[in-house]
Each structure stands twice: as C-alpha cells, then as structure tokens.
C-alpha cells in the first residue's frame, strides 16, 4: 500500500516535470516577444534540471542551473538587449499554414527518432538510480573519456578565439 502511494507520487512528479518542460517549450516557440520566449526557455531548462534531480544526479542538475540558467540565458538576454527586438518586431506578422506544418514536422522528427531508438534499443539501466559522487564523475571524464572531453574544450577555445577575431574585425571596419 505504502509503495503504491510512493509510486503514484513519483509518477505525479515525473509528469509535473514533463508538463513544465513542454509548456516552457511552447512558450519559447509561440510567444512573439523575444524576452518572453527566453523566459519559456528558462522554464524548460529548469524542468530538465528537475528531471536530473529525479534521476538522482543532483550535481548535473545544479550544473544545468548554474551554466544554462545563470550564464547562458543571461548572455542570450544581453544579446537580445543589444538588438532592437521589441514586441511588434519581425516575428509579429501572420504565418502561413504550410510553414506551421513543416515546422511541426521538423520538431516531431527528432523526437520520434530518439524515442524509437530509446524504446527499441534501451541502454542498460537500473530501476532505482544510484547517486554518483562528484569525484567518480571527474575520474570518468579524465580517464575513460579524456579524448572527447579534451576535444570539447578545444572546440570551446576555437569558438572563443573566433568570437574575439570577429569582434576585432568589426572594430577595424568602423
């Protein structure tokens, strides 16, 4: 009886998070105001962080909040403020039905492919998730997966250098 209660609670939590993610996604896509869209995106990111919490990965959940909500969203906000994206901008006109259908298909396609892959070839997993210590996580990155990890760092460095070069070229043109 008690287990059943907990299971119901778990399902309610899971669907609550999924609802937050989906509603946030719709706000992001449908709102005409860029800042409201950003708030929708942040809502989605919070929902995903909550899912990480449910999977007993609090460190990753908090990193999601620290990096995506605290840093990336804020930088996106800064970029929006530098443009003149006020309500009634380019996005506020009517959209044709064809575009809506194509956009819907493009959005559903990756969901279907990933969902099929996850259902047909499920990765080995536990029914009750284990919490993994941060130290083990670090070892995992720096021993087993050192090459992809370093490649990602290289990618970020190249991106940053590219941004700096672009900024200098813009300044020279002025």
């Amino acid at each position, binding site marked *: 009886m*008690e287990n059943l209660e907990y299971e119901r609670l778990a399902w309610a939590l899971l669907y609550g998070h999924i609802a937050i993610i989906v509603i946030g996604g719709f706000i992001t896509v449908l709102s005409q105001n860029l800042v409201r869209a950003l708030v929708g995106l942040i809502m989605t990111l919070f929902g995903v962080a909550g899912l990480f919490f449910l999977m007993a990965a*609090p460190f990753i959940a*908090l990193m999601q909040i620290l990096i995506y909500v*605290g840093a990336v969203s804020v930088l996106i906000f800064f970029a929006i*403020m530098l443009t003149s994206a006020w309500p009634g901008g380019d996005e506020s006109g009517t959209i044709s039905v064809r575009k809506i259908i194509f956009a819907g298909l493009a959005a559903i396609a990756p969901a279907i492919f990933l969902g099929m892959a996850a259902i047909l070839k499920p990765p080995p997993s536990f029914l009750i998730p284990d919490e993994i210590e941060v130290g083990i996580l670090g070892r995992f990155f720096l021993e087993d997966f050192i090459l992809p990890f370093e490649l990602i760092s290289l990618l970020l460095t190249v991106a940053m250098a590219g941004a700096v070069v672009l900024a200098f070229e813009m300044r020279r043109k002025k």
Partner: protein
Amino acid sequence: MIEAIPTQFIIIFVGLLAVMAFVGLNAIVLVYLERKVAGFIHRRPGPYEVGPPCFPHGILQPFADGLKLVGKQLFTPRGADSILFWLAPMISIAPAIVCFIVIPFGPHLQIVNTNVGLVLILAFTGINVLALCLAGWASQNKYGLIGAARDISQGVAYEIPLLLVVLSVVFMTGTFNLFDIADGQGAWPWQWYIFYQPLAFIIFFICALAETNRNPFDLPEAESELTAGFHTEYSGMGFACFFLAEYAYMVVASCIIAILFLGGFQGPVLPGGWWFLAKVYVLLLIMIWIRWTFPRVRFDQLLNICWKWLIPLAVLNLLITLAVIAI
C-alpha cells in the same frame, strides 16, 4: 494519511518556513543596523523617534518601513510587460530562500546535508542576475535598462574569480559539502582556512560585494546617476521583494565566507550556532561599514578591477594551491 508523507518532505517544509522567518527577521535587523551605522558614520543620530517614548532610539523604524511598503499601491507602468514585470521580484526572492536550506548554522542545525551544497548555493545565487535584468527590461524605462545591462556585465564578470576562488578551497578540502568544509577546520583562528588562503578570502569578499550589488559596486542601482536602476519603477511589495532579496543574498554571502574561510560554526567555549551568527554579523557589519565609507567606483574601473586584477590573481591562487597539494 499523514504517515504517507516522507519525513524528508516534512523537514524541508518546516525548514523552509523557518528560513523565511529568518530572512524576514534578518532584513528587519539589517535595515535598522544599516540606518544606525550610516547615522554613526555621518555623525548624526539616524532614525530616532518612532512611536511612543517607551521604544527608544527609533527601534520601531524597520517595522514602520515594512508597514509602509506593505500598504503601498502596486503600480504597473504604462507600456511595461506586466507578466515579466511582476515575475521578476518573485524570481529574485525565491532562490535566495532555497540557498539557506544547505547552510550549516550549527553542528546540529542544518536542514539538508547534501554533498553538493556549495554548488547549490552558487547555482541559485546566479539566478538573481536574471531576475534583475528581467526587472530592468520589463519596466520599459531607460534607467531600468541601463541598470540591467550593467548588472549583467558586472554579474558575469565577477562570477569567474568567485568560482575560481571557491575551487581552490574545494581542492583543498576535496568536498562540496558545506558541513564537512566547516567541520574540517579547528576551533581557533589559526586553524581556519583564512590562514591558508588569505588571498582567496580577500578576492571572495570583493566578489561577494560585487555579486550582491553592494557599494562600492552598486552600479546597477546607483541612485545618484540612475534614480534607482533596475527597480526604478517598482513600488510597494515589488520593491520590498528586491530589497529582501538583496539582504538575503548578503546574509548568504556572509554565511559562505564564514564557512569557507572562518571556520563556520567552529569556535572555542560557546556552542556553534552562536559563533556562526557572530561571524556572519561581523561580516555584515563590515559590508555596511564599507558601504558608507567608500565612494562608488566608475564602471570601467569596476570591470578593470575584475578582469585585470581579480581573475589573474584568482588563477594564480588556484595554481599555487594545486602545486602545494601536488607536493
């Protein structure tokens, strides 16, 4: 039915209520302290006569301030984005309350003892930047917008040395658990981490001032140039939420400094909780003292301090820490 609720939920629920009371009480005490200390530094008495004579030294002043704020009309300016405008103060205050649940106030006084406590606080204090720029943007006011833009460049810049300094302490202790970090230090001052990491302490303190928008780094609200910056258009409880959040973040920052560098709840003779409160309040008093002593820095100076001094010094501090650990 009541047995069906897990104990952990009840602990968190009661803890959150206690934290809200603590945040409110702290705000009352800090408002009074701030005005009295300001008066002392300016050589004037500060708030002095509120209510009947049985309450000397204007001790009712913060309550009068609070009542005034509660009673004021909530006003949405024309052209403002009303949803985001009222969402912003809530986003500002809510994460501040979450931060308190992982702070060990005493050896037995902590709501949730988690292995990622420090990361939790860093993650949730970062949301405040977002709230402030939403507020500045949504109020459709040029001062608000300038305040928001300043807040972003300030918050993003000062987060880097802050994280680097925290990392050097974390490398020393090998844990993100705030209780373990406090527990690993001794009762006497020479056993605290400020003794091993003095540079880290100074950098962290400066960054904490900047992250909580305290003078001399209160550029986002700079009342003498931007009216009130990001909260220019807010009245009544909207303003009060930002105000409460600012004081709550000050208390969180002082708690973190006390835990990372000053031994947390460790101290001779007295029980731990009192030591912790004393350390936090000494740090808060220093923050108030700095506010009424130093003039505000210019914006280019603010960014130069961070990018040219604090970040290189924090990296150096991290490298030295790593070298010492490796040896």
